[in-house]
């Protein structure tokens, strides 16, 4: 990277001595402030690891063509995009050159002079006199991270960008990548290259991370002036809280709609025809602008009640819903030698702290006054000294830090993937091995990782089979261990092998594996011993274990017995939702301690006791996938589903040895966590693996009165090792107002978040008490909160069911929850499916949970371009959302139901000939195939519209929902109608009846 290693040697003595430099103790060879981003081609951390204590100067492996061609020290400049609204501007960073420009080993060991750290400290470089405020010594490096699927091509472009002015290439590739996103504005894309050109060719522009985090306040400032303005912009932090109250008052009066009280019995059509937006906290505009995206971090009450008494009065649950590791298009990444944190509560500095003056900041969680470290005074963005409040850390509620070495005592672990396959007779019958091995073969190169990636395979029936894949073998060697009482690992060093070195052997194995067991007659399954073996194999490193199981384990430890009694399905009592053995739980805890996460793929036709098996994933922070009645011939839809989900599973981003901590302002306390993890100390979640599709929820209480504060903040910090071997910290901060009246609490309620949290609580309740208890609790939640509203807020007694506008969908969502698979009563729920649904409630992010609970229904036979979205030359029609009631359906239409993981297209009997021929490509209704999961791409506008719409829906989520085309006489029709939550079913009330029931209880 850097061709200027020598620069470092002289630097200490010649610093412009105007201010002391804070050099971290461990930085024996301080890498100075830098803003390079073109990068060393990822250097293997193993080969470079020197141990933190060594002083070692050596030229880095790859030299950077940029710097070498520019002997004058490059001055990073900031080509400011013209439009600076951080929300609307497409931030280039996110998806950028994740591999190429990050130097994991370098930052980690601190003994690398490298990385083009030319600018600041080079005393002999005469070419930078223009810069006044940038001579300090911090090593800030703004790099970016990105979507795993994009990584590969991005890496290429990143490396290519070294050869010329980086920003241009970066932006070009950015256009390519971001073209698909609707954030992209063409204006910006064109603007940037020209700007960087005007700044001067010899200066590589700042990395995307900088641009990303450009302070909005500098909008329109000519780029050149930035270099000279050293601080006179003064101190203009948004006054937090000062005029917040007045703002909130005006905010209230601005939205008369939100203040409305609604009589649900009269106004029945409350479902908005566009997707429901989360409520916006009633904060000052400047603060709200910085607030965390509700998709990542959301609170059930956007106005926090001042006291616990007030919260109890409102009868609404207080809690947070998080999706902390979501794939982000834009994510500012900060590399800094010190991460600024509060000295007493260890909160990371965030946009909602108070700067008392330039040198001191007040923590917004514990109110301690902290000093601003010297290096934080310099803003690498504007290249101005004395603007700590303009730094990206203080301008972004979601930010990622590259952790310095004190955050790790052992080297970051390599990515390790172990696959455990069930190969008993039953498993071979289902034929799943073919699809899984094929998927693995296809995605072997896309597995997130680096040169250290390790992979291994274990298969089991009544014995356990290991596969030696040692480099040099001509073919994989199978080792059979038949002693399942006391499992030992034969030649452990050859079972988990480096993927790069043994790739051919691995491919060989994957090709032969499906055929190896076709003749097997072994019906027993020794899952427990196999898991123990796999755990032993992985415990030295940690990593991810993917277990494929097709039946109830019958042999060895952890053997289970069938507990389901089909006759009892209908009764809500006496069903086995709890594990029958704690073997799996204990093993999961062991796994958690060794940083191993277990993902369970259950492909079983019969009852497999998911309640017990699921514990293995639940406490080791894995995930559960369930494919009931999987069969390669009889159930092609499940095969397709498995393939699509495996594709996502194998290629998605992954974080290893992670921990997550959620902090909140003094006075609030977190008491219960929901999700897949182990709580290691009361506020620390241990997550051996973290994946971007996992959501978490927490419940909170108000411990001390919050009367003397107007704002509260919540911060989640996720520390993880990326698949490239860097230790990173992803921090989200949410800021909310505190209110003192019940009415305001109700006005700020977030009905989706409340329903999501209630669902989580109900799952717990059904496990600890019973299902009927949980159902009652759900209904009572609605009744209690609405009667609280009725008695405390409404002054006059009005007839009907009066609800605040914010809670107008609360009864509907709770009714939908009652009819969801987890909590429904009736004979059609199999126990495993119910438990899987419960696992999903706990593990899914809120958006998808709400979609599965209350699907969205569209009429699609008359799509028009009216009100359509225009994204990247594609026109995406936006049909209105319909209520989930059969009365909205009609026989001469076609309706699409989006239930999160499935899409169902119901075609009415008298559906127009036009739709049949133009969209489905069939001549008449009878010719629609019984199972149709794809729409033909026809050359008609109707077909184009619906295909555009469906693919738009699919793009919005990481998994691939399968489309079912349902005829009036299809077996799937029952599933479709089951989701019609507003209608009456044999065991559940209709929406109107439910409202009447609630009204009766409320008015009692």
């Amino acid at each position, binding site marked *: 990277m850097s061709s200027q290693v020598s620069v470092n040697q002289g630097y200490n003595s010649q610093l412009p001595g105007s201010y002391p430099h804070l050099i971290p103790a461990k930085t024996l060879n301080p890498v100075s402030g830098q803003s390079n981003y073109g990068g060393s081609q990822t250097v293997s951390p193993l080969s470079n690891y020197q141990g933190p204590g060594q002083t070692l100067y050596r030229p880095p492996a790859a030299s950077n063509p940029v710097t070498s061609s520019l002997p004058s020290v490059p001055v990073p400049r900031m080509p400011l995009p013209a439009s600076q609204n951080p929300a609307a501007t497409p931030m280039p960073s996110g998806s950028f050159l994740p591999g190429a420009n990050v130097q994991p080993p370098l930052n980690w060991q601190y003994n690398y002079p490298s990385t083009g750290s030319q600018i600041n400290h080079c005393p002999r470089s005469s070419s930078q006199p223009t810069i006044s405020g940038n001579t300090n010594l911090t090593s800030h490096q703004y790099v970016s991270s990105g979507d795993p699927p994009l990584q590969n091509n991005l890496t290429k472009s990143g490396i290519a960008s070294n050869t010329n002015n980086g920003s241009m290439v970066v932006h070009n590739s950015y256009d390519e990548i971001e073209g698909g996103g609707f954030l992209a504005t063409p204006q910006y894309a064109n603007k940037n290259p020209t700007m960087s050109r005007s700044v001067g060719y010899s200066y590589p522009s700042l990395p995307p991370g900088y641009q990303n985090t450009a302070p909005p306040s500098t909008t329109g400032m000519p780029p050149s002036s930035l270099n000279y303005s050293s601080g006179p912009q003064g101190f203009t932090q948004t006054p937090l809280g000062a005029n917040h109250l007045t703002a909130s008052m005006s905010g209230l009066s601005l939205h008369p709609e939100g203040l409305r009280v609604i009589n649900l019995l009269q106004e029945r059509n409350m479902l908005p025809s566009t997707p429901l937006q989360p409520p916006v906290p009633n904060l000052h505009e400047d603060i709200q602008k910085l607030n965390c995206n509700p998709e990542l971090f959301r609170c059930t009450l956007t106005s926090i009640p001042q006291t616990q008494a007030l919260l109890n009065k409102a009868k609404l649950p207080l809690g947070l819903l998080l999706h902390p590791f979501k794939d982000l298009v834009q994510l500012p990444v900060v590399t800094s030698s010190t991460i600024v944190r509060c000295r007493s509560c260890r909160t990371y500095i965030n946009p909602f702290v108070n700067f008392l003056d330039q040198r001191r900041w007040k923590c917004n969680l514990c109110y301690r006054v902290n000093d601003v470290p010297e290096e934080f005074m310099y803003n690498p963005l504007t290249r101005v000294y004395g603007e700590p409040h303009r730094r990206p850390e203080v301008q972004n509620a979601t930010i990622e830090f590259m952790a310095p070495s004190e955050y790790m*005592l052992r080297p970051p672990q390599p990515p390790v993937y172990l696959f455990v396959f069930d190969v008993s007779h039953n498993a071979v019958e289902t034929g799943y091995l073919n699809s899984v091995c094929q998927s693995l073969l296809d995605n072997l190169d896309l597995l997130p990782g680096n040169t250290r990636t390790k992979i291994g395979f274990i298969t089991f029936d009544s014995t356990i089979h290991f596969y030696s894949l040692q480099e040099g073998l001509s073919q994989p060697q199978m080792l059979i261990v038949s002693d399942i009482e006391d499992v030992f690992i034969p030649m452990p060093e050859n079972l988990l092998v480096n993927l790069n070195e043994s790739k051919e052997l691995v491919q060989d194995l994957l090709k032969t594996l499906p055929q190896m067991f076709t003749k097997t007659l072994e019906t027993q399954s020794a899952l427990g011993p196999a898991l123990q073996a796999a755990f032993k194999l992985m415990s030295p490193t940690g990593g991810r274990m993917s277990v494929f199981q097709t039946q109830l384990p019958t042999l060895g430890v952890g053997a289970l017995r069938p507990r389901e009694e089909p006759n009892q399905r209908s009764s809500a009592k006496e069903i086995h939702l709890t594990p*029958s053995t704690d073997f799996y739980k204990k093993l999961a805890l062991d796994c958690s301690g060794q940083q191993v996460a277990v993902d369970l793929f259950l492909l079983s036709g019969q009852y497999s006791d998911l309640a017990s098996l699921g514990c293995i994933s639940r406490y080791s922070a894995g995930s559960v996938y369930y494919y009931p009645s999987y069969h390669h011939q009889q159930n092609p839809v499940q095969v397709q589903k498995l393939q699509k989900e495996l594709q996502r599973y194998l290629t998605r981003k992954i974080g290893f040895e992670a921990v997550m901590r959620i902090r909140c302002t003094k006075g609030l306390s977190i008491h219960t966590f929901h999700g897949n993890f182990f709580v290691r100390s009361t506020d620390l979640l241990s997550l051996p693996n973290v994946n971007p599709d996992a959501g978490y929820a927490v419940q909170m209480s108000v411990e001390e009165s919050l009367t003397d504060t107007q704002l509260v903040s919540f911060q989640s910090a996720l520390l993880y090792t990326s698949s490239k071997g860097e230790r990173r910290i992803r921090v989200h901060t949410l800021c909310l107002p505190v209110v003192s009246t019940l009415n305001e609490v109700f006005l700020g309620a977030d009905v989706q978040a409340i329903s999501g949290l209630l669902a989580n609580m109900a799952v717990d309740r059904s496990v600890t008490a019973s299902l009927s208890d949980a159902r009652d609790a759900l209904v009572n939640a609605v009744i209690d909160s609405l009667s609280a509203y009725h008695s405390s807020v409404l002054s006059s007694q009005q007839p009907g069911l009066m609800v605040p506008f914010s809670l107008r969908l609360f009864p509907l969502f709770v009714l939908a929850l009652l009819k969801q698979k987890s909590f429904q009563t009736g004979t059609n729920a199999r126990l495993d499916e119910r438990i899987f649904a419960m696992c999903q409630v706990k593990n899914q992010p809120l958006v998808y949970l709400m979609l599965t609970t209350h699907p969205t229904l569209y009429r699609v036979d008359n799509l028009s371009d009216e009100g359509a979205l225009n994204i990247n030359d594609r026109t995406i029609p936006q049909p209105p959302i319909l209520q989930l009631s059969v009365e909205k359906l009609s026989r001469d239409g076609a309706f699409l139901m989006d239930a999160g993981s499935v899409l169902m297209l119901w075609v009415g009997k008298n559906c127009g000939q036009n739709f049949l021929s133009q969209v489905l490509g069939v001549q008449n209704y009878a010719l629609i195939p019984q199972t149709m999961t794809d729409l033909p791409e026809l050359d008609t506008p109707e077909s184009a519209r619906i295909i555009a719409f469906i693919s738009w829906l699919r793009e919005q989520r990481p998994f691939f929902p399968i489309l079912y085309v349902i005829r009036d006489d299809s077996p799937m029709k029952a599933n479709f109608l089951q989701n019609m939550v507003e209608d009456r079913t044999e065991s559940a009330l209709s929406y109107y009846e439910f409202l009447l029931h609630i009204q009766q209880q409320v008015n009692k």
Partner: protein
Amino acid sequence: MAFTFAAFCYMLSLVLCAALIFFAIWHIIAFDELRTDFKSPIDQCNPVHARERLRNIERICFLLRKLVLPEYCIHSLFCIMFLCAQEWLTLGLNVPLLFYHFWRYFHCPADSSELAYDPPAVMNADTLSYCQKEAWCKLAFYLLSFFYYLYCMIYTLVSS
């Protein structure tokens, strides 16, 4: 001055009550240890420490589980003894706790009884604070009953 059965009961319960006090103190210490991780936040995030901490938690939970039955047995023994000795007042004071113990023992949410005090459940702040409060209350109860038994023992020895 006579050595009645009641006096014997009080003497025995005095000794056993000391054991129960010890159990309660041990519970308090154990829950406190579960609650606080005496490590700096950075150390807490360290995978090596994670293992150690997890072992610790499992060990504490294992011991907690071991202590449940002895404690409940000793307390039930008290009640039986006082019933036999026809010490109605003392029995009356102990019966609420006896019922509470029965409820705790049989109202186990899981299919197998060994899941009481299982690490993932106990580590929940809600459960933990409940358990801690329970332990403090029991400590207070046992301490008071210790002195009550002492008084009763002397009283029975002197009066009869």
